[in-house]
């Protein structure tokens, strides 16, 4: 048994878990508001998943199209989310994104420019105007490096390669966090009345994903265990264009900018099949012939958008259907062609990372031939239910921002809205956490018993005599989620998935690890598995409950969108026994001045 008095211990006002865009932005905001802040992250600083974002950050700055403004952005976001978004979050996001982008320039970011020297903006799916601030196709790297350098310049404490395994509570409010150093395996405890979750997503529960190893749903699971609820967990975004070959790179992202910059999707017959998949909801604003679609890139006033730039859920489903109908590419995807449509020079300048990625990993020259692409698990719309203005959950002192938070994106996220989401809500969470510190006089206390229990749970994989290999359990979970709770869902398959998840939970409880505590990936995975299983169960239960198709949730047995379901969000909680329960809660009501935008 671990003696709590021997454990390394630190005291802060605000502990931020995660060092991606949301976490770093929250830490900067809380620090600037006067709080004592620590950032705790699983990887080295600067390696978080934000680094992989490619296309850009959406903000209605109006640098390229002066007609653009926050109302248009708000409307696009809500329609892209199939009206299930929390309206207030979508409003704040659209209003504040331009300021958040501009301030990055004050911290050293170098965005691509317009001819008159302003921040350039590019086209993306679902956005009426070109609105993504970008740096070639490596915008995420620019964003994280800028925030990282700002964090370092401010002297904020960063605990790198340190994993939080439990939130500590005092009478229902946050009192701190417990975790371990990956490098040494030693435990660490933070005493803090405020914790900001900024842990990103859940993609590592799926077999084909664009997500990095860190995406094991840690923040989602920590919040559940602390008593918060998760909203919209049935909505998982499959990005339409991931690499499909060679197998080792299957799932790696191919940025939507390829289509924003003129690339088109074709099937094995050479047909631009997206014209066959324009839904009624988007008919009025989508071109129905190639000539009009091609003219749109230069003249947006007199032409409608190409169907390749429909929201991601529509495009992913269409690709899935083409492959199923036998019109796929040799390796089970479809063709993404920019080579025949844009010059070598243009492609290399606008899409340098894509050029490099295909050349080095697949021997494909994207300036000369088409890419093969198919859907890949990319983003979870669902996450911790929070107050729209402060990002505080139902647990006092517990905040969530970025992908781990829910509500902002509704049933489907538009490309480009994630990077701006991180900045807008990361900042808001940091400010709110700092203000709460200043307001609350008495500090919560962490009990020794909680620390002892957290330590014992973390060490259990070394103590057990079981024979389960955590890598095998993980592999099997990815299979279950991919084949039974993937892009197209049915009741029978999801019931089967829930049975399988139950069995996997039992196996995970028997997982044992070899070796010792120092930098032991088998041990780390055994602990992360609990989080992946919890999140997977939430996704399957919520998806089973929602008997309609909408955004990132497609039911083969309920293929239509149902207006009644457009009025409720599903919330997942865990009860004392540890099982996930789902409840229906009405959508917040949009005020008239905003609902008028949709008439």
């Amino acid at each position, binding site marked *: 048994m671990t003696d709590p008095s021997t454990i390394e211990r630190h005291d802060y006002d605000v502990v931020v878990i995660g060092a991606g865009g949301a976490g770093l932005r929250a830490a900067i905001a809380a620090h600037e508001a006067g709080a004592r802040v620590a950032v705790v992250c699983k*990887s*080295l*600083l*600067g*390696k978080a*998943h934000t*680094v*992989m974002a490619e296309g850009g950050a959406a903000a209605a700055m109006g640098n390229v199209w002066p007609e653009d403004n926050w109302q248009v952005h708000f409307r696009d976001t809500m329609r892209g989310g199939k009206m299930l978004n929390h309206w207030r979050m979508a409003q704040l996001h659209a209003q504040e994104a331009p300021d958040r982008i*501009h301030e990055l*320039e*004050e911290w*050293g970011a*170098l*965005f*691509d*420019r317009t*001819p*008159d*020297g*302003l921040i*350039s903006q590019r086209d993306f799916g679902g956005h009426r105007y070109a609105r993504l601030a970008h*740096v070639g196709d*490596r915008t*995420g*790297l620019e964003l994280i*490096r800028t925030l990282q*350098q*700002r964090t370092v*310049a401010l002297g904020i404490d960063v605990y790198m390669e340190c994993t939080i395994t439990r939130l500590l509570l005092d009478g229902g409010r946050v009192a701190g966090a417990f975790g371990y150093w990956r*490098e040494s395996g030693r435990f660490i405890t933070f005493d803090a009345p405020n914790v900001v979750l900024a842990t990103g997503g859940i993609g590592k529960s799926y077999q084909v994903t664009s997500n*990095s*190893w*860190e995406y094991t749903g840690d923040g989602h699971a920590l919040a559940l265990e602390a008593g918060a609820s998760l909203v919209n967990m049935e909505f998982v975004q499959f990005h339409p264009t991931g690499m499909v*070959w*060679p*197998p*080792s*790179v299957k799932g*790696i*992202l191919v940025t939507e900018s390829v289509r924003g910059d003129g690339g088109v999707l074709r099937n094995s017959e050479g047909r631009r099949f997206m014209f066959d998949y324009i839904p009624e909801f988007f008919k009025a604003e989508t071109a129905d012939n190639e000539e009009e679609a091609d003219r749109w890139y230069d003249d947006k006033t007199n032409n409608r958008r190409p169907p390749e730039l429909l929201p991601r859920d529509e495009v992913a489903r269409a690709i899935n259907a083409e492959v199923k109908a036998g019109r796929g590419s040799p390796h089970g995807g479809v063709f993404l062609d920019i080579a025949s449509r844009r010059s070598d020079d243009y492609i290399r300048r606008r899409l340098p*990372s894509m050029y*490099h*990625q295909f050349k*080095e*990993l*697949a021997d494909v020259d994207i300036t000369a031939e088409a890419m093969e692409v198919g859907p890949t698990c990319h983003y979870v719309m669902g996450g911790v239910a929070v107050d729209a203005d402060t990002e505080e959950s139902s647990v006092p002192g517990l905040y969530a921002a970025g992908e781990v938070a829910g509500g902002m994106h509704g049933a489907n996220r538009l490309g480009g809205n994630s990077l701006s989401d991180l900045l807008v809500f990361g900042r808001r969470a940091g400010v709110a956490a700092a203000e709460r510190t200043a307001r609350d006089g008495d500090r919560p206390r962490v009990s020794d018993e909680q620390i002892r229990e957290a330590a014992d749970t973390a060490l259990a994989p070394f103590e057990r005599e079981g024979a389960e*290999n*955590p*890598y095998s359990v993980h*592999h099997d979970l990815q299979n279950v989620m991919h084949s039974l709770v993937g892009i197209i869902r049915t009741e029978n398959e999801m019931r089967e998935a829930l049975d399988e998840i139950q069995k996997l939970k039992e196996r995970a409880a028997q997982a044992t*690890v*070899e*070796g*010792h505590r*120092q*930098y*032991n*990936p*088998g*041990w780390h995975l055994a602990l992360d598995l609990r989080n992946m299983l919890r999140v997977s169960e939430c996704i399957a239960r919520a998806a089973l409950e929602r008997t309609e198709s909408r955004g990132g949730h497609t039911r083969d047995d309920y293929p239509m969108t149902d207006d009644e379901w457009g009025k409720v969000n599903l919330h997942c909680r865990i009860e004392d026994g540890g099982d996930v329960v789902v409840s229906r809660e009405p959508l917040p009501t949009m005020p008239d001045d905003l609902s008028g935008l949709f008439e």
Partner: protein
Amino acid sequence: MGYDLKIRVWRGDSAGGDLADFTVPVEEGEVVLDALHRLQATQAGDLAIRWNCKAGKCGSCSAEINGHPKLLCMTRLSAYDPSETITITPLRTFPVVRDLVTDVSYNYEKAKEVPAFAPEERQPDGTYRMAQRDVERGQEFRKCIECFLCQNVCHVIRDHEENKEAFAGPRFFLRYAELDMHPLDTNDRRKLAQEQAGIGMCNITKCCTEVCPEHIKITDNAIIPVKERVADRKYDPLVWLGSKIGRRRRDARTESD
């Protein structure tokens, strides 16, 4: 088209270690990191590897493959003969933590020493205006994914532990160059580059440029211009002033390299 790969991996910790031999099945199109992951999942559950994105974007999985510093995720097995045994060792310049994971904190300490970006005032309309060709010079350096392969291979510190205190290394010369060439930055960093970062110790052997997975021309486009400016600054304050007002001819030359 799969085959059994013979792979030799360094295993151990700060107290010492040794190469261990494994045979692991691999498939067509795989990279070295795939082979190591399969090893981890089936034969060596506690094999320590640092990695994140497996797409060449985060710069976590740096190691030495047959003695060559590379990213494990961007090195395809097809580059080696199937009969060949490939040997994976940790980065040599940094202390080993365990197996292939090294303590790269040196780089994070050096990052703290770089003075922060200090922008000029916004224009009266509230914007910053910069020309695309001016931001592109800094953008080349900001492609850096901080894999630290350039730091690992730089002989000033690779074989001379004692130089680490006074020498920031190529990754941070990039950072100094980027800030120095930033259209909005108001600091003069050349004194610092010389006195604190130790750029004078670099004798431009270009080892850093050769290993950069982002193909940044570290020596030609960053280190040499900074060295030249350090020299200029000592003798010619007018040229320094000029560099802050407009672009100089020399920059146009280095840009076209």
